[in-house]
Structures are given as C-alpha cells and as structure tokens.
C-alpha cells in the first residue's frame, strides 16, 4: 500500500524516460527508502545529495523487513499460540525432544531461506544469520504473547516456562521467515530480482522438496497437536483411511497440475504423464513424512500400535498435502 501511494505521488514519468535507470532510481531514492546499499550506491549519481542517507535507507529497509516478519510470524502461528495442547506439550515433552524440535526447525529455516528466502543470492553464511535472527524473533514474540495470555508467570518452574516458549517459538520462527519473504508488496526490488534471477532462482528438485516440507509442516502443525487427530486415527475405519489417502493424492494432483494455481506452470514444465505421477507421489511422500515427524514430536506415537500410527499419519497427511502442494506454490517467491 505504502509503496503504491509513494508511486502515486510521483509525477507520471514520461514513457521514454521511465525505463531509464537514472529516472527510476532517483524516484526510488527520494520516495522509497528501502534500497540496499549496493543499488543505492549505483543510483547515487543523478541524486548525489541522497547518497549519504544510504545507510539510513538500509536500516529503514531492515525495519520494514522485521515488521513484515513479525506480522508473518503472528499470522502463521497465532492459532497455535491459542491452542491448549501446545501449552500442555510444553511441559509434557522431554527436553531432548524439544532440542530435536529446535534443530529440525533450524534445518527447515535454512532450507526455506536458501531456496525461497528474501535474499536471492544469499550465501550459506547469510542464510544462517537470517535463520538465527528469525529464531530469535520467534522466541521474543512467543514470550510476549504467552505472557500476555497469562500462560507463563514468574512463579512457574523455569523448565515449564522455557519449554512453552520454545515449542511455540518454532512455528513463529517459520512464520517470520515466510512473512519476511512473502508479505512484501510488489516492491521494485522484487521485480528487479525476478527479472534477473528467473533462471537461477528455479529451485532444483532438492529445493522443491525442502519448500514442500516447509509448506507441509506449516499447514499440518496447526492441527497436529490437537486431540482431534488422535481421535480420528483411532476411530476411522481402514476403508475411510484409504479414502483420505486417495483424496489427498487427488488434491495434490489438482493443485499441482489442473488448477492453474499460481506458480504451478513454472514448477512443472515437463508435462509427461510420468513426471506428473512422480510429482504427485513425491509431494504426497513429503507430506506423509512431515506429518509423521510432527506427530512423533508431539508424542502421538508413544505406546501406539503400528496401525494407529499409520492411521494418524494418513489423517494428518491431508492438511500436509495441501501444504506441500498449494503451500509450496504460495511459498515460492514469484
């Protein structure tokens, strides 16, 4: 919104000059203080007096990114911050499992930032720094919200407080990461980047799997800790479970290949029947694996018979498939 308003204030540049670097970049340095240092330095020539504000600009830009991150973190994790099973998990789960959760989340953040993150050509060092920042923001945000909700108090045992914060902070961190990358307006920076890196940005097979996993976890985590999954897993007949599995596969196929979903074209250029089938199978496999990982983490497999383990995984596999297919397409930078 802000960006569009800023543009609206500019006098309409005449068509011939509009594409010229000087004109466009001067407008930007006057009205849109969110360039990174490099491009600010490049564009400094026509508006030399503004070059001193380059570092201000970059701080401004970072602030905006953090604001987007905070909003995104809350959008994706607020349902979980308001879920009792999550608070209970905070004191039921062992510290080892929580450590595993932190490690797993960090890997997901690394993967997401690397393949779909805001900074297109980021090195692994930058990706790691971004991931640590997002985790820190996640911890701070979840502490604040849990305190506001009265879920953590000063008299509580330290282990209870820390566990509750950690378990909530992990989804917040993923939300922060996605929010920072996704919620930005149609900024010129993104357009530029899209032009430049259309080709190099095509995440390969590994990247697609990572982003699909992110989407699956982001979607499935919202329902995974609830009692409903365990209830469904126990009550549903094998026939219905098979139905759910087939419906999940169909859903994946529709989203990825039939619905003209945003970004679907780019992801599945080869349209042979074999590649379609393999795409759907891989998506569903990622969804099932993610679902099983989350369920195991919440202790839903403890003491369960193998048939109930599979049943719960298939039930949670439905939202996870939606995340791995639709979520994956939405999580990609366009």
């Amino acid at each position: 919104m802000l960006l569009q308003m800023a543009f609206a204030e500019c006098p309409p540049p005449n068509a011939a000059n509009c594409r010229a670097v000087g004109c466009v970049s001067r407008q930007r340095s006057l009205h849109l203080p969110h360039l990174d240092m490099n491009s600010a330095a490049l564009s400094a020539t026509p508006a030399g007096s503004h070059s001193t504000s380059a570092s201000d600009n970059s701080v401004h830009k970072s602030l905006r990114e953090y604001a987007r991150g905070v909003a995104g973190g809350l959008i994706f994790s607020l349902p979980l911050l308001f879920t009792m099973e999550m608070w209970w998990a905070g004191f039921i789960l062992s510290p080892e499992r929580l450590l595993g959760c932190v490690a797993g989340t960090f890997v997901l953040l690394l993967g997401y930032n690397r393949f779909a993150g805001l900074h297109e050509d980021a090195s692994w060092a930058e990706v790691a720094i971004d991931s640590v920042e997002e985790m820190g923001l996640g911890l701070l945000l979840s502490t604040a919200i849990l305190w506001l909700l009265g879920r953590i108090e000063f008299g509580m045992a330290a282990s209870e407080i820390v566990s509750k914060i950690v378990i909530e902070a992990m989804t917040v961190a993923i939300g922060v990461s996605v929010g920072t990358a996704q919620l930005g307006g149609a900024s010129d920076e993104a357009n530029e980047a899209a032009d430049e890196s259309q080709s190099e940005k095509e995440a390969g097979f590994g990247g697609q799997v990572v982003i699909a996993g992110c989407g699956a976890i982001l979607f499935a985590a919202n329902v995974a800790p609830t009692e409903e999954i365990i209830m469904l897993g126990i009550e549903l007949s094998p026939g219905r479970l098979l139905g759910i599995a087939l419906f999940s596969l169909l859903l994946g196929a529709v989203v990825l290949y039939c619905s003209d979903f945003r970004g679907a074209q780019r992801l599945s250029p080869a349209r042979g029947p074999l590649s379609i089938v393999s795409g759907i199978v891989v998506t569903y496999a990622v969804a099932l694996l993610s679902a099983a990982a989350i369920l195991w983490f919440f202790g839903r497999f403890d003491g369960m018979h193998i048939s109930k383990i599979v049943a719960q995984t298939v039930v949670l596999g439905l939202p996870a498939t939606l995340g791995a297919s639709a979520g994956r397409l939405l999580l990609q930078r366009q």
Partner: protein
Amino acid sequence: MKTPHKNWLEWTVFGVGAVLVVATLGFLAFDAATLGSAPPGIEARLGRPQRLKKGYAVPVTVVNHGDATAEGVAIEVTLQRRGRATQSGEFEVAFLPRQSKREGWVVFDADPQAGRLEARVKGFEAP
C-alpha cells in the same frame, strides 16, 4: 568467504537472536542432562481456612516434586471430627508439570478449625 554486508540494526537483531538461541539450547541441554527419572511425587498442602458467605473455603497447594508431569491429579480433603469423617471436598488438577505447583480450594459447611483436615492424593494419569 565474503563477509555478508549488513547494517547495525541487522547485526543487533542477529546478536540478540544468537544469544537467545544459544541460551535456549544451553538451558534445554542442561535440563536434559540433569533431569532425573523419578515418577511424579505429589504432595497436597493445606492453607488457612477462610470464611465464605456460606461455609468455609480451604486453599490447597498441590506440588509435584517428581521429574514427570502428572495429568488429572485428583485431590480429596476430608474433615475429621471426633475421629469420624464428617464431610469431604475434592477437586482435580488438569496438569501438574514436574517441579511445579498449582492452587485449588475445597469448601466445607462447618468450620474446619473445629476438627482436623486431612488431604489425600487419590490418583493421576501419566500423560
């Protein structure tokens, strides 16, 4: 390896984030290393009875000294007069985490100070 170019704000956020993450990991690792395997050890402590409009309320603090969380902890408090249980009150604590305490109340018609109160943990579930 090229140094990532970042401004002071980003370095600050990174610094705070790194400290938080390391502290969290450190705490969890320490917690994991020192955590024993004692089952939930639950104790119910009675406080001073307070007069209500009708009857008397007695605060009860339920403490878990063990290393595991207890779910659905049932607490019963009986009022004994002349060696006989005259009335009892009970409540349930939904979750009692390890090394934590929760508060509850039991209510009696007669003044508990006239007799003797006895608190008992009836049972609980392993979550």
